[in-house]
């Protein structure tokens, strides 16, 4: 099967080409067939590869020489090892289900073909990222998913909010990519190659502590952009302006996890840089906690899930930061299942309620949408870490490894787990329980989604339940599978401690759910009173700590002002003013300043002369 791994890339690419060129002519039905079967076939290949790579330390499969010029040589080849195979299988599998779901969700959209083209293009770019055997290819995929994300978030570009959100995502991602690009350039400068295997093999000999810290920090900057970590997380909540399946696919299950994958892929380098690892773990823990607090007061169902995604990504970075790469990948996998599920369920709610997404205008939906309610509950339980659901195992694995590393990180993680249980069950109770607060007309029209949408949800629900068992602490399928690549050091058998911690986190999760039940079902008046009592805190949270405003004031506006200033600088009045000021200062010319007119060509010539004098002076006096 490994020999045919390239088919994994080919199918989505064909899907893109067919739908891009003929999409508008062949009709919606054909478009969906093409798009879904492309990803489905790709998924089958990925499964084959997943089995084929078990136990292998990885094979590289060159497809063609991409760049070959002098010493600069880059192969376009696939790196097939357990890590990439697992990631590829998750990406294609979840994408496949979401493609199917989209058939129903986007059925009425006039740009149906374009939507599926973008979706396939996204999967293609993501697979390039995942299967890359060198940094350049990975970077291309990396930017590619960023681009698709821009296209899909801004898919309904007629809405200003959507267009703005797309732009924001793109720019913020570019800030992160900048770090990644610089890291790649540094690697190339030091190694002369960009191939992973070569770099990892020679890293211990070539890189000093400072160099490896610099490189890994730069790579991590890239990861914070793509994976929405502090301080670059701000794009993700806004990205919910895109169609809901897109949110499920890109901003929950696949693209945002690219950062985690990249760190895991570079674990050799990160292992050599303890400083960076500490930064990664701290940022991860801080993001996890910080995002969870914002989710507590959010009213928009999709945004709650978005903050939850940021928070869960924080967990994954916490994991890779403490060296538990396999645990991070395990959580990545389970999270892909239950987060995609939650988003699709939210989409189903929107579908039923004509796009209404404010949870305070919903309520009581459990009688109208029993299936949606059930799958949402499963997803919520998995996310909250209710024992025996998938999230429980993967989260616990991370907490356990964090505890071994540093109790402080563990405490933060535990606190986050508690908040997670509270906010997600708040969303569940407010949306599905109690009396409805929806408009009457909407309420009456509410209906379950068609089968094409609910079947993918059911499959994901099953996965969200059983997904955890592949990584049971004692069974450790994931860790064992990834072992050839990640060389996970087996944590000392701690016996009692481990079980105690397991119990603690289970209790924490259940406690959080109980609190949510008390606050939002038993005594619904309490939250409102609380928010009044702690008004400043509430405002701070609901305004998302004013981070967007901060960025606006500190980064965007000044840049714009400087630009405007530069453009206006050579406005006659300003030049004259500045030059006159200088002249007066120098006392060179004291008369007639007020009546002077400015000559623009001459002020340009003046600028040339300034340059001449400075450069000539530098050369002569050096």
């Amino acid at each position, binding site marked *: 099967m490994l020999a045919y791994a390239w088919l994994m890339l080919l199918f989505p690419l064909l899907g893109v080409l067919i739908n891009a060129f003929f999409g508008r002519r062949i009709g919606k039905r054909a478009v969906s067939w093409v798009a879904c079967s492309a990803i489905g076939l790709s998924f089958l290949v990925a499964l084959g590869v997943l089995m084929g790579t078990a136990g292998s330390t990885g094979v590289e499969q060159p497809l063609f020489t991409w760049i070959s010029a002098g010493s600069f040589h880059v192969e376009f080849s696939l790196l097939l090892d357990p890590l990439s195979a697992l990631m590829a299988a998750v990406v294609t599998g979840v994408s496949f289900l979401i493609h199917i779901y989209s058939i129903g969700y986007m059925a009425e959209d006039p740009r149906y073909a374009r939507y599926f083209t973008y979706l396939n293009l996204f999967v293609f770019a993501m697979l390039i990222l995942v299967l890359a055997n060198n940094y350049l290819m990975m970077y291309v995929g990396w930017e590619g998913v960023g681009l698709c994300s821009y296209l899909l978030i801004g898919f309904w570009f007629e809405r200003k909010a959507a267009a703005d959100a797309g732009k924001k995502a793109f720019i913020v991602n570019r800030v992160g990519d900048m770090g990644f690009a610089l890291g790649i350039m540094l690697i190339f400068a030091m190694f002369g190659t960009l191939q992973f295997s070569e770099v990892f093999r020679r890293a211990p000999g070539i890189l000093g502590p400072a160099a490896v810290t610099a490189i890994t920090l730069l790579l991590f900057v890239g990861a914070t952009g793509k994976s929405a970590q502090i301080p670059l997380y701000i794009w993700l909540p806004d990205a919910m302006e895109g169609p809901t399946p897109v949110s499920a696919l890109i901003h929950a299950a696949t693209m945002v996890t690219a950062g985690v994958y990249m760190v895991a892929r570079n674990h050799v380098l990160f292992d050599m840089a303890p400083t960076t690892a500490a930064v990664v773990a701290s940022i991860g823990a801080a993001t996890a906690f910080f995002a969870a607090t914002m989710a507590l007061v959010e009213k928009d169902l999709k945004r709650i899930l978005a903050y939850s995604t940021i928070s869960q990504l924080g967990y994954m970075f916490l994991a890779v930061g403490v060296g538990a790469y396999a645990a991070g990948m395990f959580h990545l996998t389970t999270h892909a299942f239950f987060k995609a599920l939650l988003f699709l369920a939210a989409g189903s709610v929107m579908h039923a309620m004509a796009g209404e997404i404010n949870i305070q205008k919903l309520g009581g939906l459990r009688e109208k949408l029993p299936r949606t309610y059930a799958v949402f509950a499963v997803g919520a339980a998995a996310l909250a870490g209710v024992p025996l659901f998938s999230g429980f195992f993967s989260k616990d694995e991370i907490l356990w490894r964090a505890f071994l590393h540093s109790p402080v990180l563990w405490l933060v993680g535990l606190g986050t787990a508690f908040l997670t249980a509270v906010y997600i069950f708040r969303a569940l109770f407010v949306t599905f329980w109690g009396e409805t607060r929806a408009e009457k007309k909407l309420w009456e029209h509410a209906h379950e989604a068609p089968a094409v949408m609910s079947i993918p949800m059911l499959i994901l629900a099953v996965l969200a339940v059983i997904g955890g068992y592949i990584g049971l602490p004692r069974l450790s399928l994931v860790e064992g599978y990834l072992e050839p690549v990640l060389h996970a050091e087996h944590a000392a058998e701690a016996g009692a401690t481990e079980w105690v911690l397991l119990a603690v986190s289970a209790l924490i999760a259940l406690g959080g759910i109980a609190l949510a039940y008390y606050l939002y079902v038993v005594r619904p008046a309490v939250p409102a009173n609380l928010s009044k009592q702690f008004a400043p805190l509430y405002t701070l949270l609901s305004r998302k700590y004013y981070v967007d405003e901060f960025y606006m004031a500190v980064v965007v506006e000044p840049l714009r002002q400087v630009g405007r200033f530069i453009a206006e600088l*050579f406005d*006659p009045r300003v030049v004259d003013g500045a030059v006159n000021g200088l002249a007066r200062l120098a006392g060179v010319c004291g008369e007639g300043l007020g009546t002077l007119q400015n*000559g*623009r060509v001459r002020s340009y010539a003046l600028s040339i002369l300034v340059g001449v004098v400075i450069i000539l002076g530098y050369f002569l006096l050096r």
Partner: protein
Amino acid sequence: MDAIRYLLILSAVLFSIGAAGVLIRRNALVIFMCIEIMLNAVNLTFIALSRQLQSLDGQIFVFMVMAVAAAEVAIGLGIIVSIFRHKPTTDVDDVSLLKG
């Protein structure tokens, strides 16, 4: 002071006078004359150096500069005339629609 230094300083002075003229005059024609002064100053440098170095390269260069100056004058006056047709002015400060 030996002759070559004298000549180099002289041409630098002429060049600077030309450059100053570009900055202080507003009449496009006069600015252009000042640029011609600058070119001539460089020509003097070339010929002085050519004599000093006992090579003809500098003189040939001057010959070429004369051709360049001729072509520049043709174009420059053409441009000034063409603007004058829209706006009867030779004041460069009056020609500033494009900015920002």
